[in-house]
C-alpha cells in the first residue's frame, strides 16, 4: 500500500529539516531559562535552573531515591489501571452483548460517570483510610469509565452486516463473540485504553497527595516543604516521561493488534 505522494515527499526531503527546525525553539527556551537563572532573574525558590534540575536528577538516580519512588508510583498506577480495565471491560461486555445487561448496567454506570472521580477522594478516605487502597481505588474508578464507554460503543458499533455474514456461516454464541464482535470492538477498546492511561496518570498525581510516604507525589510534597523547586521539576519530568512511554506502549500494541488496518499495512 503506497502512501499518498504528499506524505512520501515530506518523508524524503522536507520532513527531516522540519524535524530539525522543531528542536530549535525548545532548546532556545531552555537556554534562556538557564541564562535567566544564572543572571538572578529567576530565583531558585521560584524555579530552579535547568542545570540544577539535571544535577538533582542525577543525584536522585544515583542515591536510588528516584527509581524506588518511581516504582511505587508506577505500581499504584498499574494496579489501578489493571483493576479499572478489568472492571470496565467486564461491564462493557455484559452491557454490550445483551439488552438485559444494557438495561441493568448502563444507567448506573452513566450516572456514576458524571461524577468527577477525584471528587470521591474524601469519601474514599473515610472508607479506605489513607493507605494504598484509596489511591488505587481512585485510579480504578477513573480508568474504568473510559474503557467501559469506548468498549461498549465498539461492541455496538460492529458492522451488523459482518455479524449477519458470520451467522449465515453458522457462527453463533461464543464463536461469534470471539471471532467477530470482540475483534471488531478492539480499535475502540484501545482508544479507551489510551484515555484510561492518561486518566490514571492524572489521578495518580492527585491521589499521591493523600498522605503518601513513598512515591513521586511524596517526593513532590517533601520538596515543596523545603522549597526544592529542582526536585519538583525532576518529578514533573518523570511524570511526563512515564505518560509518554505509556502512550508509546499502547501505540505499539495498536500496531500489533490492528495490523489489519489499512493505515498499518505496508506494501
Amino acid at each position: 500500500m503506497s502512501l499518498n505522494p504528499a506524505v512520501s515527499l515530506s518523508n524524503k526531503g522536507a520532513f527531516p529539516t522540519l524535524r530539525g527546525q522543531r528542536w530549535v525553539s525548545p532548546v532556545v527556551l531552555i537556554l534562556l531559562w538557564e541564562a535567566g537563572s544564572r543572571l538572578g532573574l529567576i530565583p531558585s525558590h521560584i524555579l530552579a535552573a535547568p542545570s540544577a534540575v539535571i544535577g538533582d536528577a542525577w543525584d536522585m538516580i544515583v542515591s536510588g531515591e528516584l527509581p524506588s519512588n518511581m516504582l511505587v508510583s508506577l505500581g499504584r498506577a498499574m494496579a489501578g489501571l489493571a483493576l479499572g480495565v478489568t472492571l470496565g471491560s467486564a461491564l462493557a461486555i455484559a452491557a454490550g452483548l445483551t439488552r438485559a445487561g444494557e438495561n441493568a448496567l448502563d444507567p448506573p454506570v452513566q450516572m456514576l460517570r458524571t461524577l468527577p472521580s477525584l471528587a470521591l477522594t474524601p469519601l474514599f478516605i473515610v472508607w479506605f483510610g489513607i493507605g494504598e487502597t484509596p489511591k488505587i481505588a481512585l485510579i480504578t474508578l477513573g480508568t474504568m469509565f473510559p474503557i467501559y464507554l469506548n468498549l461498549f460503543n465498539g461492541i455496538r458499533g460492529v458492522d451488523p452486516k459482518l455479524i449477519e455474514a458470520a451467522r449465515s456461516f453458522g457462527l453463533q454464541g461464543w464463536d461469534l463473540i470471539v471471532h467477530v464482535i470482540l475483534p471488531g470492538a478492539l480499535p475502540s477498546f484501545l482508544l479507551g485504553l489510551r484515555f484510561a492511561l492518561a486518566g490514571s496518570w492524572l489521578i495518580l498525581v492527585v491521589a499521591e497527595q493523600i498522605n503518601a510516604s513513598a512515591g513521586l507525589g511524596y517526593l513532590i510534597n517533601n520538596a515543596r516543604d523545603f522549597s526544592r523547586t529542582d526536585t519538583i521539576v525532576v518529578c514533573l519530568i518523570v511524570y511526563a516521561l512515564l505518560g509518554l512511554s505509556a502512550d508509546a506502549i499502547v501505540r505499539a500494541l495498536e500496531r500489533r493488534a490492528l495490523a489489519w488496518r489499512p493505515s498499518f499495512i505496508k506494501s
Partner: protein
Amino acid sequence: MAQAVLHAREPAAPAAPATPTPSPRRTAGPAVRLRAFTRRFGDTVVLHDLDLEIAAGEFVALLGRSGSGKTTLLRTLAGLDPPDGQELVTPSRRAVVFQDPRLLPWKRVWRNVALGLTGTDARDRARAALTEVGLGHRLDVWPTTLSGGEAQRAALARALVREPELLLLDEPFASVDALTRIRMHDLVLSLWRTHRPAVLLVTHDVDEAITLADRVLVLDAGRIAGEERIALPRPRDGGPEFLGIRRRLLGLLGLELPPPGPVAELLAFPSGEACA
C-alpha cells in the same frame, strides 16, 4: 449441460397439492421448497403466499425491483430470518455471497474463508477453495488489500468451501466493474458445473439473469409475477431468442420496450440494468 427442469410452477394455483414431477436428476427431492409462504414486517406484507421450488443443481435467477421482496426471500432461505412455523425446506449445507464481500478485515483471507470450519485441514480446504477462484496466491494477505473483484471472489470461496447444496447469491456482482463482472459470471458458471449446488441468484440485471440461469423468476410485490425457462446453450451472448426473453422479462418488470426494429436495437444496451 443438464437442464434441471423439476416442475412447472402455476402462479395462480398456490392451493394445488405439491405434485412431484419426475426429476431428470437422481436426487430425492427439490433443494428448496416453500409453500404459501408469507412474511410480514408490521403491516407490510413483503412476501405474499409465495410458492417456490428449486431443484437440486438448478440455477435459478430471481429478478425484481427494489422492495419486491427478493432480499427477504433470500434471507429466509439463508436461515437468517426464522420461517415462523411455515413450510420451508432447505438443505442444511447452504452458503450466501452478499452484495458486498463482508470479509472480516481482522482475519487474513484464508481465515475468512475457513471461518466456522472445524478440523485441522481447515487451511488446506481454504487453500483449495481460494485456488479454485484464482486467489491461491493471496492466502495470507489482509482483506483490505484485495481489489473489489478479488474480495468478491474470496467471498465466493468462503461460500464454496462449505460445499453447499444451496448457494445463495445476493446481487454479488452489483458492485464490481463491468469487465470483472463478466469474468465473475464465467467463474460462477464453472464453479456451478463443478460442484452442482442449487443456486438462487438475486439480481436486478436482466441480462445477467438470462446469461446465467436455467430459470428466471420475476418477483413483484411479494409474489412471483412470472417465470422464464431458458434452454439456450451456454455461453449465451445475445441473439434473437435472448432478446425475446429479455423483452418478456422486462415486460414483467413493468418496462415495455417498443416492438423490435432499429430503435429497439439501439435501446438494447448491453449491460441492461432493468431498474436501479
